């Protein structure tokens, strides 16, 4: 009896501190991608290519899959290092630190704008009299609270919340199909120029951003062999959800009305009725659950920022940076004057994100291949 107990204990011990399981790994991807992008995605999708917006979204999601796989492949060359560490190995200390700083600045502005966008929605739709500063501060405190914790806690929280985020929006979107007209969705393949479709894809790509957080989570995953498989799983759910939301929005509103709506997904849920009079104002329930989606997105990114910053500055713990960065994050979040300026800035950020997540990993992978630095992948793993 006693002999049998010992190996059991060992099994638990293998998952030592500071590790995430594979499921938590995909949960982190899902929760980081599902943030504020999907709230405006239907409008972004149809803004250039009208009905071919569905193709734009498909292209954007496929591109994000390719980039995700490249980032994971790259990360597997350096199984126990984050992107900020292997940047310094590949590019040398100085250049590596500069590029690392660039990534961090991009994540930083991204996080700030994500928080601002959602606060904007809350202030226009639910709490009209609350100053937006208060909403942002409360959100930031909450986000910092989670980012302050260890990676293990981050993984568990993400795993716990993933269904609370996915189920309501999926349910409500499917309900909204009831008021949809399939004729609004057509013609998907006709009469749209390729350039417009690509432009739409570029704009839609914003709502798929966030997957690049794997670059910093990857060294903590327990079984590295499974990272690609679970990465794809983490990509699949937000992509499917996005496409369903886009199709539902187009079928309910039509392309031309969609362009008039500031918050298309929110309006979609607003015009959904469920059991007639019992559940009339579903949008409030939706916003409440979507706070969680936003909270996890921002926390994961802030964790990445703090972690990367600590590694660039050679700090021992990421916790120091979380607190110091908060006031700056608040200021950046407040900097756009109104929602329109915010959306313009978000477009710029998403282009930067597109460049960073598409070009940088490929260049790095080629450099690694040419210079032969790093291990040759999974085989190197010594666990």
């Amino acid at each position, binding site marked *: 009896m006693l002999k049998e107990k010992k190996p059991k204990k060992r099994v638990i011990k293998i998952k030592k501190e500071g590790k995430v399981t594979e499921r938590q790994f995909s949960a982190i991807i899902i929760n980081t991608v599902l943030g504020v992008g999907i709230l405006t995605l239907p409008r972004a999708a149809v803004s250039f290519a009208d009905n071919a917006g569905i193709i734009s979204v498909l292209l954007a999601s496929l591109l994000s899959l390719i980039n995700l796989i490249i980032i994971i492949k790259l990360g597997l060359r350096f199984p126990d290092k984050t992107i900020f560490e292997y940047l310094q190995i590949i590019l040398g200390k100085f250049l590596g630190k500069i590029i690392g700083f660039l990534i961090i600045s991009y994540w930083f502005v991204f996080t700030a704008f994500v928080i601002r966008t959602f606060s904007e929605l809350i202030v226009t739709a639910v709490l009209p009299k609350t100053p937006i500063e208060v909403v942002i501060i409360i959100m930031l405190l909450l986000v910092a609270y989670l980012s302050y914790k260890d990676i293990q806690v981050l993984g568990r929280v993400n795993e716990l919340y993933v269904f609370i985020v996915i189920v309501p929006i999926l349910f409500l979107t499917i309900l909204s199909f009831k008021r949809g007209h399939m*004729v609004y*969705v057509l013609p998907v393949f006709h009469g749209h120029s390729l350039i417009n479709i690509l432009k739409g894809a570029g704009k839609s790509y914003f709502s798929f951003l966030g997957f690049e957080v794997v670059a910093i989570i990857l060294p903590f995953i327990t079984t590295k062999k499974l990272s690609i498989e679970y990465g794809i799983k983490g990509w699949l759910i937000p992509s499917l959800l996005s496409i369903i939301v886009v199709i539902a929005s187009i079928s309910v509103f039509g392309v031309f009305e969609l362009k008039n709506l500031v918050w298309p997904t929110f309006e979609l849920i607003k015009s959904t009725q469920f059991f007639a009079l019992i559940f*009339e*104002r579903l949008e409030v329930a939706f916003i409440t659950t979507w706070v969680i989606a936003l909270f996890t997105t921002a926390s994961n990114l802030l964790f990445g920022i703090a972690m990367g910053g600590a590694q660039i500055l050679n700090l021992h713990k990421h916790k120091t940076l979380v607190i110091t960065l908060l006031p700056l994050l608040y200021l950046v979040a407040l900097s756009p004057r109104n929602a329109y300026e915010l959306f313009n800035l978000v477009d710029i950020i998403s282009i930067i994100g597109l460049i960073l997540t598409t070009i940088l990993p490929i260049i790095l992978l080629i450099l690694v291949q040419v210079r032969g630095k790093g291990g040759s992948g999974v085989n190197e793993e010594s666990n």
Partner: protein
Amino acid sequence: MKRVIKLIIIILLMNILAGCWDRRDIEATVPVLGVGIDFVEEKDRNLTKSNKVKVTIQVPVPANMEQGEGVVWIISSVGETVAGAIDNLQNKLNQELFFGHLQIIVFSQDIAKEGINKYLNFFRNSAQIRRLSWLLIAEDKAEDIIKSEPKLESIQSVYLTHMLNNGVSTGRIPDIRLGDFFIRLSNPGEQATAVMLKADKEIIDYIGLAVFEGDEFVGSLDQPETLYYQRALGVPNDTSNLVLACDPTTEIDRLTIKMQEVSNKLQPELKEGKITMKIKLKVEAKVLEQLNKNNLGREEVVKQIEMSIENKLKREIDKVIKKTQSKFQTDIWGFGEYVRAYYPDYWNKINWEEEFPKIKINIEVQAYIRQVGMINFTGK
């Protein structure tokens, strides 16, 4: 010491996190149930110069709920714009107006004729307004509809929404809400419509469908025409019936038919630069009554009835379509959306508003008699 600090933090947080900014007790709001928007009448306009719009609202009076009398309170105010008039209303009220429970928005025909969009903007821009509220057009004054007091329900707006919802579920009234109106305004391939009402002191009457060109009211379909409009768009009908006239060439006497199941298929066809709209309807009907003759047991009679249903539907739907093509010249059917969907290249070349009156309509109706009722017809 640590405990004290923690306690202080908790107390401080309690103040922030309760969300007091937007705390609104239900007693401290005036929920608006219905809004009516009219022009200020000419003779009154001299008094208030620039004021143009008269907004009438209906609010419930909770204190009178139990007595069942004076349950709603009607107040109105004028202003330059809708928002301005509502702002002026606020001057007369003790609490803040709340539009989250708004059920009906009524416009008078005159306002609708001038173009409804500028008066709708307030409702479109506000986050409180739901897209599922009803947008209605009053034949005369919007005020009259808000003011009328039907008997069955103490709150008139509730009565009206029930009436409209039941009308929708039985296929009597087209399901065109505020949100659908906005969508139809935006879409190039279809024109907006709205339910039209008429009211006197006690009775609110559904009289048909208001037809818009852009955001301007151009005319209306009456109630029977709306019924055929609904059938052509494939909405089944639970209550109102089709009466077939007596036909001397066949053995059919006057019949009343109910169309239980209707399904439609719209298919545009492009030939030599011209659009033909094909409408295929499948109707499942039930005989409600037949005067005089008991010959439903014979198959040929049933065939004849089916034939005459088909002819009648074809004729009537064609009439309504012709009316929208020639009289209003607006595509309230949404045919343009089908053309856009199936012939995008052609769509980009044409101006649908000019093209719609010229298109050909091809209606095919297939009718089946499924149920004949409880009487056993002997087949004589």
